């Protein structure tokens, strides 16, 4: 939806440098040609996203097993999102994951940025950046499998605990009803920190060094410097980081699919996993579609809200 507006105005303004065209008493002409330019992109969007989205919305109003005839049930599938305890908790779990996927990485990355940016001339900085960004590059199945090994009863974490005499704390982290969801969440934190840090460091690099100098002359300490210069200057990057990580948290599927399959019990089930499972395994296509639609709506709303942090003028 934003694409047509954006390209239309940019074409307008490029031809509208003389004031006559902009102001002239004549009716504004619709630049049909402009729409021609976006046609290819729009066709792609419509075929691969638009049509399936409308179809999903349609399915969500039916009770259908994917094969036989379907029955119209109106908004019943949506009602079940609130009355079915498994579905309700899947959305709550996604909320918990936002904390691990978005809040922890952003806060930690800000803290690290404050430290690293002071040693701006650190040697081998690009190497560190690459290393920190690595989790984002590794395929998620590999990440998940690695963490399954780390969390396993004889895995790295339990070995470390035994080493320092905390053997009583050891457990199957992904198999324990109380620790499974946080355990999945921490994998998300690990994934997110590098991404956030790289974003923030590039943001800090854009701040005029004079600003820091001025602050120091005014007697600001490291903390004051961070809150009065670094943090406000990073608003744009924070918004981007939050958007990416919150969306990642809400649509998590691969990690849970590989590590726990929603278990133990239903303690790590998530909306995206439920949508998949209902559509392809348990023959509840309508319910799956309703989950998908609600999830999409939540992601859209959250993204719009996060954009409010973004400064009005972004370079």
């Amino acid at each position, binding site marked *: 939806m934003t694409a047509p507006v954006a390209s239309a105005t940019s074409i307008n303004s490029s031809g509208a440098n003389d004031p006559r065209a902009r102001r002239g008493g004549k009716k504004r002409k619709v630049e049909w040609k402009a729409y021609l330019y976006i046609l290819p992109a729009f066709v792609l969007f419509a075929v691969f996203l638009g049509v399936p989205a409308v179809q999903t919305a349609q399915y969500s109003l039916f009770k*259908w097993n994917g*094969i036989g005839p379907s029955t119209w049930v109106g908004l019943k599938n949506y009602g079940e999102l609130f009355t079915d305890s498994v579905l309700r908790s899947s959305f709550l779990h996604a909320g918990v994951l936002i904390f691990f996927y978005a809040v922890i990485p952003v806060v930690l990355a800000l803290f690290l940025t404050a430290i690293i940016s002071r040693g701006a001339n650190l040697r081998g900085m690009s190497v560190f950046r690459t290393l920190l960004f690595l989790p984002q590059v590794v395929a998620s199945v590999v990440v998940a499998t690695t963490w399954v090994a780390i969390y396993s009863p004889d895995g790295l974490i339990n070995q470390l605990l035994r080493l320092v005499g905390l053997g009583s704390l050891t457990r*199957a*982290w*992904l198999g324990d009803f109380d620790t499974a969801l946080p355990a999945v969440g921490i994998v998300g934190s690990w994934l997110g920190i590098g991404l956030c840090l790289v974003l923030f460091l590039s943001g800090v690099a854009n701040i005029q060094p004079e600003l820091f100098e001025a602050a120091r002359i005014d007697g600001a300490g490291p903390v004051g410097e961070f809150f009065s210069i670094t943090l406000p200057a990073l608003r744009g990057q924070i918004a981007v980081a939050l958007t990416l990580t919150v969306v990642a948290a809400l649509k998590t599927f691969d990690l849970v699919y590989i590590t726990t399959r929603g278990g*133990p019990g239903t303690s790590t089930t998530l909306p995206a996993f439920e949508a998949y499972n209902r559509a392809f395994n348990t023959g509840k296509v309508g319910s799956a579609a309703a989950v998908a639609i609600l999830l999409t709506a939540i992601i859209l709303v959250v993204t719009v809200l996060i954009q409010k942090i973004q400064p009005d003028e972004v370079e």
Partner: protein
Amino acid sequence: MSRSTKTVRTLAVSLALALAATACAPGGSTTDEPAANSSASQVSKDVSAAGDVTLTVWDQNTDTGINDAQEELNKQFQQKYPNVKIERVSRSFSDLKTTLKLALTSKDPPDVVQANQGYPDMGSFVSGGLLRPEDDYAKLYGWDSYFPEQQLNLNKFTADGRDWQSGNLYGVSQTGEIVGVYYNRKILKNLNLQVPKTITEFEAMLPTIKASGMLPIAYGDVEKSPGIHIYGITQAAIAGKQAVTDLVTGKSGAWTDEPSVKAAQTIQDWATKGYITEGANGISRDEALAEFGKGKSAFVITGTWEQPKVIKSLGADSGFVALGPDGSDTPVTTGGVGLAWAITTGSKHPDVAAAYIDFITNAAAAQVLIDNGNLPAVPPADWAPKAGTLQADVASEWKRVNAGSGGLVPYLDYATPTFYDTLSAAVQQLTATKLTPQQFAEQLQKDYAAFLKSK
């Protein structure tokens, strides 16, 4: 164009789209009769008459032993009938489960597919008119006499897909499988224990093994399906064949009946007393199997399909037994036949498809299966692996379970389309003492009652 007219227009367009979308319901809104199948036409054994044919086959024979057998059988079939080319699509069980529905409902479905028994898969395929009844071919090729009745029943459905184990035959199976108890001969011998034959004998030796400092049962349930097996064999041996079969097929009974609750209690006791691996919900099936394979536990409960792995790790020390109810000679245990080889209604060459299915399931195929380390659905009468080996145990237990009216109890997740999720999650909660046995049973019953009501 002003902002408000634009909004109105957008709204109108989306409303129109929505209306258009709801106008035609997915999959058709009325209960259309399944397309009349072609069984009226004559069926024939003549494959050559079909001319050049490409037969598309979807199977789930991806494990080493069965994959080798399948490749060999396909090769032999194509040598026998040079006019037929087999296009094999092989997927793991769970991949097949998630994609088969889409393939069957597409315009150009495969000719032959392996369909899982029970209501979630075969039942819904049949109700959608996607599978062709094979009764005519069963007569033509003599499947109806070659396979034992309890095996054929597993592959039967009424034409509307509502009643399982009666009505039309929708496929035959290649392999047999039962879930049972693998035991370590050495450990039992050292503790002076006999091989258990009934659930009570089995339970009675768990404290002895535990007291010796040995883990009785290696158990890992992170994949969730092993939970169905451990509960399945316990319930089968406690409640008996008829009660569980009636329950799973939806004929009578409830999951809250006393024997089923008692089975749940039994498993919870095993967990709290440390008879099964601690933190089993975080341990994979393969880890548990490896633990048993290293001689660190006396038993592991799983299916005959793990036989090649156990032989590799424990060799001659391994044995296999299927448990029965007290005072019964016939074991009663979870099991069945491999996925049914079914013909799709969309297949243009049902005669060729049936010839293929016969070729890979008949007595000659059984020998190929055995040669590659598999358990055929109908073992040759003269098949006798060396006594005292795991192979001999598996073969004899399969024969015992199939003798007379048999002791096969269907997999419990066949009960309803959502039962796999419900039951597997509930067993994890049961072993972690998040549910009492009664609550466990009620959770299963809730799913079950809802399905029966909707049928």
